[in-house]
């Protein structure tokens, strides 16, 4: 297939998928709207309680908020209003802080993205050398040790790993701050916790990909043709082994931005997870819906990136899309 045709195919895939991503995100936000309103209790009262405190809230404050924020209108009208604003690119204002939702999401989202990226990159810094090595010496010491490590980490809940790290490095050794976000030292423990929870699954994937490619006949044949084992792996092994690994790594990154709540809560880290938990307690509908949008959209974009990488790595996949 010509380069122009391949690019054309890529563009078509991208346009189609970005459209799907937007639709998915809007659907997710709508579900958030429905679920928040299905929760028992008076929404305006919860918002009032969050604004002035549980002790000082009165029915009058709740009624005032209900009128001011238009929470007394029929739900369908409120939903329609939100969709109309969304079409203009306006996500509304937080019921709690009064700040624009976009601003809240951008502030907290940047924290999450930073932590996620660092943790994710760190996890592959650990997993790639270990996984590749284990794939080259199956049954060897590194293979068995990483296997035990992976199984252990996979079976431990993330918060236990986090608590363990905090106890050791923050409370006992006092090398690192236990929680918060003021300095870069604050990033270390949450990023390591995140990385370890990812490594548990990526090491076996990398190991098996390497093992499988090494057993492929084209690798053996490359050596019969005269390539040394390292050259054969460099030319034929890496790209083929990368196909499953890249897809998996991208999906893990999606899991990072999706599954941050535990780690952010544990380390009192001001990311999207923390914002979402606060917004849920306060029934801050615009923020919840905005977060739903962002999470849905970023998940779709990450999986699109995974697909594009795969198309780039594997010509057969491109062929399958085209036909």
């Amino acid at each position, binding site marked *: 297939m010509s380069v122009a045709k391949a690019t054309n195919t890529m563009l078509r895939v991208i346009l189609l998928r970005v459209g799907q991503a937007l639709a998915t995100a809007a659907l997710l936000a709508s579900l958030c709207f429905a679920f928040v309103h299905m929760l028992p209790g008076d929404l305006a009262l919860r918002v009032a309680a969050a604004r002035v405190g549980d002790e000082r809230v009165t029915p009058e404050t709740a009624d005032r908020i209900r009128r001011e924020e238009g929470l007394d209108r029929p739900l369908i009208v409120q939903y329609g209003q939100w969709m109309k604003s969304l079409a203009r690119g306006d996500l509304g204002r937080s019921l709690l802080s009064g700040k624009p939702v976009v601003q809240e999401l951008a502030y907290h989202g940047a924290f999450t993205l930073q932590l996620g990226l660092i943790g994710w990159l760190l996890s592959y810094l650990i997993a790639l050398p270990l996984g590749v090595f284990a794939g080259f010496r199956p049954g060897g010491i590194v293979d068995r040790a990483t296997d035990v490590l992976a199984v252990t980490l996979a079976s431990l809940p993330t918060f236990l790993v986090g608590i363990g790290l905090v106890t050791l490095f923050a409370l006992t050794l006092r090398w690192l701050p236990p929680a918060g976000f003021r300095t870069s030292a604050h990033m270390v423990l949450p990023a390591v916790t995140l990385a370890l929870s990812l490594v548990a699954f990526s090491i076996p994937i990398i190991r098996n990909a390497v093992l499988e490619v090494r057993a492929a006949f084209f690798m053996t044949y490359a050596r019969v*043709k005269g390539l040394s084992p390292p050259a054969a792996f460099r030319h034929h092994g890496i790209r083929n082994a990368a196909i499953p690994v890249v897809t998996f790594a991208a999906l893990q990154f999606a899991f990072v931005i999706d599954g941050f709540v535990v780690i952010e809560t544990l380390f009192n880290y001001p990311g999207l997870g923390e914002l979402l938990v606060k917004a849920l307690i306060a029934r801050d509908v615009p923020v919840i819906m905005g977060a739903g949008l962002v999470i849905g959209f970023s998940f779709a974009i990450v999986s699109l990136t995974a697909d594009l990488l795969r198309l780039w790595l594997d010509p057969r996949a491109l062929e399958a899309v085209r036909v």
Partner: protein
Amino acid sequence: MADPVLSVTNLTIRERNGHILVRDVTLAVPRGGVLTLIGETGSGKSLIAQAVFGLLPPGLEASGQIMLAGRPPIAAGDSRALSGLWREQIMLIPQEPSLALDPTMKIRRQMALAGLDDEAVDPALAAFDLPVHSVDLYPFALSGGMAQRVLVASALGVGAPIIVADEPTKGLDAERVTQAIATLRQLAAAGRSLLVITHDRHMAEALPGTLAIIREGVIVERGDSARVLAAPESDYGRTWLEADPRHWSRSARCCDMSDLALSAHGLAFGWPGAPLLFKGLDLHLPRRSILAISGASGGGKSTLADILLGLRRPLAGSVEWAGADIVADPSAIRRFRQRYQKLHQDPIQSFVPHLSLARQFTALESVKTGLSVARALPPLLERLKVKPDLMDRLPREISGGEAQRLALARILLLDPTVIIADEPTSRLDPVVQRETMALLRQLVDDAGLGLVLISHDRALLRSVADDEIQLDAFKT
């Protein structure tokens, strides 16, 4: 033999459980000469080639000696020492071209990595009648025959004095077989020494030198090639030679065109940027009949099979399954899928690599309601002459011929209306080929099947088919 350049002495190959696959084989390839090894599917002839390269599959052990002229002998099990001979001393033309090429790399780079620079590539392609643009394709876009020629062309760029060709004509049409033979003769004339493993009688006849016939891991006859082929002394040698399709009687039947299992009208297909492979193609397949499709390697035979099976859309035309047009109404594909089945060119690839065959067969029960594999399979295996104990193995642990018969068994369990068989016997030796064809014919007659038989072997097609379509006639 006065001056063997490669000798194999007392080679025995056994499974870990002690089961012997190749027994005490001694062979010598004369300097600048040819040794041809023929034998039936599963006879162990390819294992001998693998043992020479130290590439036996895991679980197999070799004993005996392998010796190159002027070098100390190497123990047959010493893979490391044998791998030291690769490229410089011995070169392999492997039997599964699709597996020997990196699926993610264009042909040009793969040839470059084999040592053929850009100037060497074009003459190499021309010598094997490969289109110039084929080096800019990925392996999946090559037909089996083209991939095979790419490998032969690259192997020749390597200077090794000894070349082992493992089934070099597998998947090639008659014209290309002639070419491949000429190439191998050319190699021999240029002083390279050849060990050729084949089940192709034309190749065996055309190569000079010595011929050895192997059966069930034992060499049953050997001698000057022309002498053995003219007057084989062993019973098996005689059976093998009589099984040539040219000696079969012509099939002649007429069919009821009103009861069509499959038909197609006005089909056209071509790859982007290349001329159409065919256009305006019509075909009719009545029940209880065999329709042959022949054509040159790379001419679109397998692509046509995919279109007839609803696996690929044609650029134009219609395909009717029992009267429903699957091009216009793809939902019909799902309704009739089980009844329209393909017997693949490369049977091993049609099985899941890491599951035992038994489990893969049992899995069919979830596809077809009311099917009991435990009840239906044993009589089928007996009919297809497959040993039941093969079922416990992995797909890569059985021979190509066994895999093809199991693939056929798997399709028959689904009670098909139409089977499209893509070169179903190109990997089988003549004896098994004839049995398989007789079996297919019988199945077609007994079960009222329609069979589309795709092959480059026109002698074979003429002897079994009721009707024939030559794809080359629909080229644009």
